[in-house]
């Protein structure tokens, strides 16, 4: 057994505890545990914190991919505007593309505070755009397939990361 802590802050998470506590209420640090138990707890927490940093990077990449989708839609909108056969088609594609660009930009911005919502919405809308385009013109499914796969990959990875990060945050008791 190591000597009892003499301060009122946890050695692991620096949150206050009562001297009667056996475990830290905030992080579960074994306040009266052996030196080995305490070291294990701190190293486990450090590993989880590193995982959390990695998850945050994945989320950030997924959020960036939402900006990329908006940019690609913008470029294709310009292309469609130049090649539009009639004013009606031009107007219709303009309305749809402006809404879509706005939506993806909004998802990317919202993703800063509400990543789960932004990534689920972004992924769903993106997959549906691909699906609807494929229904109207099957050849579009193969067009830019590498880009599509990369974007979907980033979004799915980001979504998984959000969920894992949420779990870890709960475990580590951080916001």
């Amino acid at each position, binding site marked *: 057994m190591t000597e009892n802590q003499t301060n009122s802050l946890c050695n692991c998470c620096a949150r206050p505890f009562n001297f009667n506590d056996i475990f830290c209420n905030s992080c579960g640090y074994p306040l009266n545990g052996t030196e080995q138990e305490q070291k294990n707890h701190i190293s486990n927490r450090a590993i989880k914190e590193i995982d959390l940093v990695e998850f945050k990077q994945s989320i950030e990449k997924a959020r960036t991919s939402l900006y990329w989708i908006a940019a690609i839609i913008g470029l294709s909108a310009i292309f469609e505007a130049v090649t539009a056969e009639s004013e009606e088609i031009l107007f*219709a594609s303009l309305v749809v593309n402006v809404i*879509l660009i706005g939506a993806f930009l909004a998802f990317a911005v919202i993703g800063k505070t*509400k990543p*789960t919502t932004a990534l689920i919405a972004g992924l*769903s809308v993106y997959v549906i755009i691909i699906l*609807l385009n494929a*229904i109207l013109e099957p050849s579009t499914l193969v067009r830019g397939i590498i880009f599509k796969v990369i974007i979907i990959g980033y979004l799915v990875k980001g979504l998984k990361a959000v*969920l894992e990060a949420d779990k870890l945050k709960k475990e580590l008791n951080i916001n």
Partner: protein
Amino acid sequence: MLEVGLFFIIEIFCCATALIIDEPSLKNLFVIDVIMAIATILFFGYRWKENKTILKWPAFSLIKLLTFIGITIIASIGVSYSVDFLNRVVFEKQMGFYSIFAFHQYGTYLMFLSVALYPAIFEELAYRGYLMQTLLKVVDEKEAIYISSILFFIIHFSLVSVFWLLPFALFLGWLRIKTKTIWYGVFIHFFFNLTACVLDIAPLSDIIKLLF
């Protein structure tokens, strides 16, 4: 989350099928509705113990319900006219549900069943029921409302409806969280769609003339 993904893929598949059918018929519509209803019941029933709580109606208030219904009818009239205006002036076309049902001798009743009653029960059970209940396990209440509302909006495949469909879904989601039941949502959804159906058959001016 995988379960939610699978559920949403089935929903999207059904809605996309309805969208790509060149000549929508009552039979096709019925088949798709039945598949979606079965999927909803299966997913909802799969976690019956957790989900059944939202089928209860705690703190039922008739005044609250009637107030919601009144506001819903007014809102639906506003939305119907706005959508009609958008379709006529901006997109130069007229849209309506009745054309699919008109030829049938019970067309009007079938339209009410398919457009008003069915979505009110099964969409609420699916989105404010199963989906929100499952999402609440992994995200907080606000995010559950946002996600379910966006997915609800997406399955309607109508970008132009963003101005009313998304706020409508957000309101129903918020109400479901506040009241801990889907039943207010079911009634609101039913009366919203019912008003749209009535206006599709008879314009508001005709109804006013008939009443007064």
